């Protein structure tokens, strides 16, 4: 069965520091991978996605993620964090194939706190 693990429930970084949020997935075939961000009391906004091709994916707000098949990982990175990046981040995996309904499996989320 598909699953997604975000090992870090809570991360605190200083403004201007680099950031890496970890995501590990379990899926037999090539997965479709996503990162979403959620500000308090809001819906989820898509940061980036990987379907195929280049394993380094660029997203909005200066984020990027790298798909590493050998490690079953899709870690999210940002070189310099801004205070406005404080939010909850969700990794998700989807299954391809005919007849698939596009369902996603989400990780439990990582809450990012940014220190001034």
């Amino acid at each position, binding site marked *: 069965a598909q699953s997604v693990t975000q090992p870090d429930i809570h991360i605190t970084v200083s403004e201007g520091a680099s950031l890496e949020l970890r995501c590990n997935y379990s899926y037999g075939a090539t997965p*479709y991978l*996503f990162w*979403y961000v959620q500000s308090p*009391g*809001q*819906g*989820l*906004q*898509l940061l980036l*996605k990987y*379907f195929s091709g280049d394993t380094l994916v660029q997203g909005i707000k200066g984020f990027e993620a790298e798909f590493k098949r050998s490690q079953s990982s899709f870690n999210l990175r940002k070189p310099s964090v801004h205070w406005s990046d404080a939010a909850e981040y*969700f990794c998700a995996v*989807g*299954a*391809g*194939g*005919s*007849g*698939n*309904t*596009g*369902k*996603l499996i*989400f*990780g*439990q*989320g990582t809450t990012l706190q940014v220190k001034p």
Partner: protein
Amino acid sequence: SQTIHQWPATLVQPVGSPLSLECTVEGTSNPNLYWYRQAAGRGLQLLFYSVGIGQISSEVPQNLSASRPQDRQFILSSKKLLLSDSGFYLCAWSRGLAGGKETQYFGPGTRLLVL
């Protein structure tokens, strides 16, 4: 462009009362539609999804039901709310493409508090 709406934004209901949450999508046709619940401090749990009018799949047994009376309308209901139904309810849509290469887009959510 496509937009997704949810209402109400916030709802406080007594235990045992009925529930109806509505989600509508604009700017697309025949989308896949999804209902998620997000309990405090937890991730997202898929409750229902729909690939067409009148077609509802339930992911977990529970006190809730869903309906899709129109192409771009998705309703989450309950006849009698439980305390455990409290949470943040998110609706999402995707284009309904063959092969499952789907991106889901989320609405603003409804916060439900059952007292």
